[in-house]
């Protein structure tokens, strides 16, 4: 009996505890949901506070007040606020013009060495950078708060949003650990390169062949360089052909730019693709 009583008592207590603890949590969660909206605005405000950088809470309040007229509709849609915020504040306008020319200049020289300035390709390159700067902003909204904080620090150090992407190498240390690539993102990259890789299934000893290629990306996520990591033996021409097919896959225009979320560029500036036909051969 005693045990039964004690047990039931404990269970009741536990049930009450769960109710007490759980219900407030749900309320809190609702609060939490409400919070992110101001946080988004905070991002925008950061641009204005570039020099100050230190007090985060202050930064949050100021931007909210200052932008409330314009940003209210923007809360839902992320893109518009970003374009607008720079305009009202005097400091930001200079940065946006600066990065734009940079973006255009950089991509042009890169294609030039390879193709010799085609109208079509140049056009493509121009389009891409224009689109790219936009996506990073929306990504911000979806990113966790902690990541945003980290980005604030970045911005303070490097002023504009677009610059960091290009000069990203210097800042890489800041955000790598927080956002490993998700499985689906890895899969997207894998599927992209699978679609670019032409395998000759009749190659002799195909089952034994593995080749690794280091892929280096430009900030616009186009492939800058493909480097073989394995030594191609002078003797085995089958292996050389296999390795060259992997290089062609990496250099295939269909696989450039790499389907990588722009915000993950930092950690994937270089990565390794290891090609083998094991799946294809059912190994």
């Amino acid at each position: 009996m005693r045990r039964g009583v004690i047990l039931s008592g404990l269970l009741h207590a536990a049930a009450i505890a769960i109710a007490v603890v759980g219900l407030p949590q749900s309320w809190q969660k609702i609060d939490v949901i409400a919070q992110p909206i101001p946080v988004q605005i905070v991002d925008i405000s950061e641009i204005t506070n570039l020099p100050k950088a230190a007090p985060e809470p202050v930064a949050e309040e100021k931007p909210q007040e200052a932008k409330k007229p314009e940003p209210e509709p923007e809360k839902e849609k992320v893109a518009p606020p970003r374009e607008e915020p720079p305009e009202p504040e005097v400091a930001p306008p200079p940065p946006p013009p600066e990065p734009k020319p940079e973006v255009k200049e950089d991509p042009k020289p890169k294609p030039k060495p390879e193709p010799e300035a085609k109208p079509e390709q140049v056009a493509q390159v121009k389009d891409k950078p224009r689109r790219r700067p936009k996506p990073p902003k929306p990504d911000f909204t979806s990113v966790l708060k902690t990541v945003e904080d980290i980005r604030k620090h970045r911005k303070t150090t490097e002023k504009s949003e677009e610059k960091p992407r290009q000069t990203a190498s210097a800042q890489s240390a800041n955000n790598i650990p927080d956002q490993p690539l998700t499985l689906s993102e890895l899969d997207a990259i894998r599927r992209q390169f699978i679609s670019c890789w032409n395998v000759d299934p009749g190659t002799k000893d195909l089952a034994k062949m593995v080749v690794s290629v280091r892929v280096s990306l430009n900030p616009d996520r186009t492939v800058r360089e493909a480097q073989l990591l394995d030594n191609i033996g002078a003797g085995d021409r089958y292996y050389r052909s296999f390795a060259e097919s992997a290089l062609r896959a990496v250099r295939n225009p269909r696989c450039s730019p790499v389907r990588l979320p722009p915000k993950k560029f930092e950690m994937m500036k270089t990565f390794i693709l290891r090609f083998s036909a094991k799946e294809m051969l059912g190994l």
Partner: protein
Amino acid sequence: MTSNVAPKPGRPRAAVPLLMAVAASLCLAVPRPAAADLTIDIGTGQIEPMPIAVTEFRAKEEGEAARLGQDITRVVTADLERSGLFRPINPQAFIQSLPSLDIQPRFSDWRVIGGQALVQGAVLVQPDGSLRTEFRLWDVLGEAQLVGRAYEAPPANWRRVAHIIADAIYKRITGEEGYFDTRVVYVAESGPEERRVKRLAIMDQDGANHKFLTSGRELVLTPRFSPSTQEITYLSYFNDRPRVYLLNIDTGRQEIVGDFPGMTFAPRFSDDGNKVIMSLAVDGNSEIYVMDLRTRASARLTNNPAIDTSPCFSPDGSRVVFNSDRGGSQQIYVMDAGGNSARRISFGEGRYATPVWSPRGDLVAFTKINKGEFFIGVMAPDGSGERLLTKGFLVEGPTWAPNGRVLMFFRQTRGAGGRTRLYSIDLTGYNEREIVTPTDASDPAWSPLIP
């Protein structure tokens, strides 16, 4: 209560040190991967022909050279296309024109149209009348030259020059030796069923330059090319006596290979061309014999009451694959070149016949008969990895291209008026194509690369 609860946390506790160890090791391990790059495994790809742009082989002026240049371009393109490993891009899509080899390709122009390889060529009729043909093969994506060569030959040999160029391209891209500069000898059949005329015929691997080698008075069977010379061996019923003959294609000289007491058939050369291995039937029992063509000395390799036939040397000459019903049904066996340690390698359903060892050494091609259907298949020399490439009412007589990559065989369609034609197929089972012949055709044999 407590006694029940305690063990549960107890397990996690026991696991805690382990978890900590794991966590610690992860912490230790993390810096290294951070410094190293993430590795993504690509375990499969596309099986598609490689897009290649073959630009016209240009001559400096109009006339014969220009015409030859066009012909060479056409043959090179056709060779590459027929291999199934290349997809020539329609020249109408070309953006840049490459009138001479002095002009460097603008790789972007070729990337835009999807090209991965680019062939650039030129022809020139020299003062002495010979035709000089040059070409370069470019890696469009890697922006580098892969091969560049020049050939001089009498203009009449333009077709061989084209095949040799196609071979060079094929070899550089695939790693395989080429097979375009080769010929095929086969049995041309004509006439009604009861009075079938069978003649030896020879043609280029693409069906061009077709000609008959024998008149058709005698029945001929099983022609086989020497792997090292332009000689063929075949079975002829001259004066109604089946004998194995040797024929030099270039000189037309014909001789009998040993005058054995019984019936000899299914001859085949060793890879060095010095020996012929064949079957000899005496009193209804056929055994496998090998004969050295230099000394004319022959030796028996098998001694078994069963029928042993269709022998074929491995490319290194150390082993022999053959056909035997010693186990009760027709199966494929492998023995060493001295005739010892025979071992059955075919264990699938049905009967197996006409084993042919790949020049590459990694596969044995065969004909399989199962439930009334014929198949052409390949398996590893140890019997593993059997794959059936094609099937039909009657498909038979596989022969390897000299690079061990492509098979040719003949296919007969059902019915009295069924046609019998030659087909080629990639060892992957893709890209089956008919080889156009003027008459019915059977028993193809692929030559080595023409020296």
